[in-house]
């Protein structure tokens, strides 16, 4: 049994140590907000934050997540930055199909938690690993800036 700390709660799960965190979350724990997109750390749909750092859960063995604080889309609204980001996404109507947005919101939250006033170049650096096929990038950029000004 492996014990994980996810969104502040402890979860015990019977998983092989090399099983990617993505499939542990989705298939064993039923937390389907984190998405499968490529399986190769190329698209960012599976982004979760480990100790506040964005990680591609599709290539992160579950054993590497043990002992770290795992944050997922299901819990990110409970943090003040995550809540602001979600609200900014709603205020600016970022989403279209929405499938990549869990990963986008996790990446944006990690960025803003470390850097409350990111420049365009900071945003490029933090967000370029997250693909959106609907093409919501201009709104994501605007929403990140909006979140820095947003109410808590």
């Amino acid at each position, binding site marked *: 049994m492996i014990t994980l700390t996810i969104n502040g709660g402890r979860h015990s799960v019977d998983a092989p140590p090399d099983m990617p965190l993505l499939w542990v979350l989705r298939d064993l724990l039923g937390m389907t907000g984190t998405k499968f997109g490529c399986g190769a750390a190329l698209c960012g749909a599976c982004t979760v934050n480990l100790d506040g750092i964005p990680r591609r859960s599709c290539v992160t063995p579950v054993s590497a997540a043990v002992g770290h604080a795992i944050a997922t889309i299901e819990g990110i609204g409970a943090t003040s930055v995550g809540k602001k980001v979600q609200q900014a996404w709603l205020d600016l109507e970022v989403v279209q199909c929405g499938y990549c947005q869990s990963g986008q919101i996790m990446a944006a939250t990690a960025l803003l938690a470390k850097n409350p006033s990111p420049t365009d170049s900071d*945003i490029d650096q933090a967000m370029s690993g997250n693909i959106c096929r609907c093409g919501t990038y201009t709104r994501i*950029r605007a929403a990140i800036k909006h979140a820095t000004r947003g109410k808590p």
Partner: protein
Amino acid sequence: MSPLSRREFLVVSAAAGGGLLLGWSWRTAGARETASVFAPNAFIRIGTDGRVTLIMGQVEMGQGTYTAMPQLLAEELEVGLDQVRLEDAPPDEQRYANPVFHFQATGGSTSVLGLYEPMRRAGATARTMLIAAAVERWQVDPATCHAKRGVVIHAPSRRRLGYGALAARAAELPIPDNVTLKRPEDFKLIGTSAKRLDSPAKVNGTAQYSIDVRLPGMKIATVAASPVLGGKVAAVDDAKARAVPGVRQIVRLEEVVAVVADHMWAAKQGLAALAIRWDDGPNATIGTEDVVRELAAAAETPGVVARKEGDATAALAGAAAKLEAVYEAPFLAHVAMEPINCTVHVRPESCEVWTGSQVLGRAQATAAQVTGLPLDKIVVHNHLLGGGFGRRLEHDYVTQAVRIAKHVEGPVKIIWTREEDVQHDVFRPYYYDRVAAGLDAAGRPTAWTQRLVGPSILARWAPPAFQNGLDGDALDGAVHLLYDIPAIQVEYVRHEEPVVNTGFWRGVGVTHNTFVIESFIDELAAAAKQDPFEYRRGLLGKAPRARAVLELAAQQAGWGATLPAGRGRGIALMYAGHWGSYVAQVAEVAVSPSGEVRVHRIVCAVDCGTVVNPDIVKAQIEGGVIFGIGGALWGEVTLKNGRVEQSNFHNVRVLRMNESPAIEVHLVRNFEAPGGMGEPGTAVTAPALANAVFAATGKRIRKLPLERQLRSA
């Protein structure tokens, strides 16, 4: 369930517990039939508790239909969007038929243009009947009553009755033959940027896509189909795969092997451990060059004439200058963010399917065909789609999933890896075009010909739409050329691709034709030594709406203003007959010495007639442009030895945040008929970029993707 008689195009029935069920069905207008509250022939359901349910016959894949359709219904029903809940429609080819396709389909940017009036009529009829129920109760003049936010109000006496209290009686009333729709100037919801109803669930992880389905006892499977297109499984050694912990079963079909497991990780490991010997079949040596050679040969033969004005041959012969060119557009993959997936539970007497489909009725029909069960034993649950772009207008993956699930005890979720999703996509066709034009001494075009070579998607996908040898989708845009040229001939050479499965891809025919037309008109302007904006403008005397968007885009983009060295500005115009929308775009790019294109700024002007939700229209243009930029700069699927060479996002390059330009969208507002908006942003982008590249470098790129050609140019 208490069936009630059906009259005209409306279905009304008393709900169990007495509610109102009402819907408009354009396919069965005038027919008499019965329906019960539980039957899905409805767009509006109102319970005696006052709850208003709107049933969504068009599926949501990001385009905003789960907001636009409710806006149309709620506007006339006189309820607020905060008072409704939405329900996915079940499969039903008649009752949820798309008015353009005549069966249940969401695609081709048709939802608003096809349902603008039917949805309003459904809402208005329900409202009229609820008011009639109140009038009867109060015995007052109907003209003294009105509805607002789900309540009927008799203003003189200040009496009020909620829809819930009126629903049971309204369900028994005769259905009015004609209802009065609101005047546009009275709209409260239509034309406003109402908040998207699907957004909240999509920012907190609770939105349910079909890949998120979880069922008791469900297994998870992943598949490998023959890497050579059209190949078959010759032999499978599954000993190592079976030894993977969590792997439960290997299912071998003629052309695909599935590994069924407790979770996706075990399934993926099992798949990697399989030793499959493939029978490659006849396609094992096919490459892209073979495809292009056949297309080029077909382009030497005359096609079916789709548009003819004047005598183009004579006009070309008599022209002061003649230009000829060949344009090519490659196979393209969709790579929607949600990989292809479908969950199926086959039981002896029934079959249940959970998927995300743009063609729900077809998903049901294929499950019936594969299982041999009657249609009414097939239950299909649709979900939010993690992107469609035309991919989910095909039901191949549902067919495959049901075939696999027939061999599996209990429910099984089949998920394609991204590699499988790319390599076994149904690709945008490779198109090959020969164009020619004649100019008079002043540089004005006297003749225009386009011979378009490609497959007919419609002949396969909607056979009745393929008529007289013409595919209206492949030709869309080409036959609607708006430029005032005295002699025009457009020909279509249908050339079915023998190896590669081809289908719709955001804009399909229009996307390809707009690239050809708008690049070539740019060539004519250059040959005439005229400004490309002024040249187009001078040819649009008979197309005022097109000229207006062209002028607006040019004005907003600062057309003619000096750019920094190394940058170029390109302009393009888009009009498609079946969308009825006009879009002009100005693109500003920089091209590096090594041929890398950086898109700095995109300005679009849009006239799509009546706008239901301006912010969603803008979002569709923004997203369509970004989809179009990646496609134009890098998009291509190539074949080598019968296999697709691309496999995942490392070699299927799409636009990313750091490459995304500033995008401005300017809407022209009027009350013309509403036009389609899901695809035009993509369609107009490739030629604007190609023309900007020409302005920046002097290189005319006639074959997509642009960067590959710039590197070899």
